[in-house]
């Protein structure tokens, strides 16, 4: 994937993810002005017209949003939203292609680390290795979207298998960068992982915003292979 295509794909996917997040905020009357403006500022990114002014507006709105909620509203998905937005803006403001590539490369590295570090933390936790951590999430956390899902807490074998599948996927994710085929397969698995989290735990915003970071990694893998 060329740098220009990765940049454009990131703009479109980021705009779509922001539109989805912002639409949900319109339910709250107090937040309508801020998120209505954010939706308008997404349009330049979506249609590829006046992208830099659109990005600068979104950066300003991002700061207002952080001030409004005194931090991220939706945890990791808001942090990833800010990261992609700031890297994309930096790539557009960069004085040379080298710095633009550095900004998008930074995003790709952060995406890789988001999986690897998460997997490493789970791997060192005995409750994750035994499946108990996941059982507790189903049993009594605030996350399961339906009460009937809580019965899954009793499926020990299934949860141990699922825990190890998540751990192995996350810690081995950096190895997927070795070839384009393995990377595309890993990203498809990653998308399925986020979709499952959205279905079971209602974490829908993570799905769309993580997808928006994927083009940067597909480009970086091509760039590294070309440089070797």
């Amino acid at each position, binding site marked *: 994937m060329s740098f220009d295509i990765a940049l454009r794909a990131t703009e479109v996917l980021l705009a779509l993810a922001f539109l989805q997040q912002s639409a*949900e*905020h319109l339910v*709250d009357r107090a937040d309508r002005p801020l998120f209505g403006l954010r939706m308008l500022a997404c349009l330049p990114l979506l249609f590829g017209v006046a992208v830099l002014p659109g990005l600068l507006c979104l950066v300003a709105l991002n700061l207002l949003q952080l001030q409004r*909620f005194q931090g991220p509203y*939706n*945890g990791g998905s808001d942090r990833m939203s800010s990261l992609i937005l700031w890297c994309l803006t930096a790539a557009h403001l960069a004085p040379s292609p080298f710095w633009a590539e550095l900004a998008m490369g930074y995003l790709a590295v952060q995406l890789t680390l988001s999986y690897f570090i998460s997997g490493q933390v789970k791997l060192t936790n005995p409750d994750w290795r035994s499946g108990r951590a996941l059982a507790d999430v189903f049993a009594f956390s605030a996350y399961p*979207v339906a*009460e009937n899902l809580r019965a899954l807490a009793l499926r020990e074998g299934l949860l141990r298998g699922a825990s190890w599948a998540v751990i192995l996927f996350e810690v081995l994710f950096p190895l997927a960068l070795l070839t384009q085929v393995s990377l595309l397969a890993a990203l498809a698995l990653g998308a399925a992982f986020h979709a499952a989290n959205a279905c079971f735990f209602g974490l*829908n915003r993570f799905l769309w915003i993580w997808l928006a970071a994927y083009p940067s990694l597909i480009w970086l893998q091509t760039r590294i292979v070309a440089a070797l």
Partner: protein
Amino acid sequence: MLTAQGYLRRLVWNPRWNEGLYLVSLSERLLDGQLSFSRAEILRIVAKEHPEIAAERLQFRLVFVARDGERIVEEVLYVSECMEL
């Protein structure tokens, strides 16, 4: 119980659930010491989500559930003052 259609719809539209997760985050922040903002936001959301509450003042408590060995324990970690809505 959610239908397959319900799961699919929630992939793109789940504002109340996300607000619930925000409440969880506010509760954690409150215990970390970010008192006034978290308290005010929790009160604002509770009042908004429960318009049937006719009271002018409201008090809430935060109950945290955790595993202690083989037992699941509940602990009240915060009780707010009675506050004006």
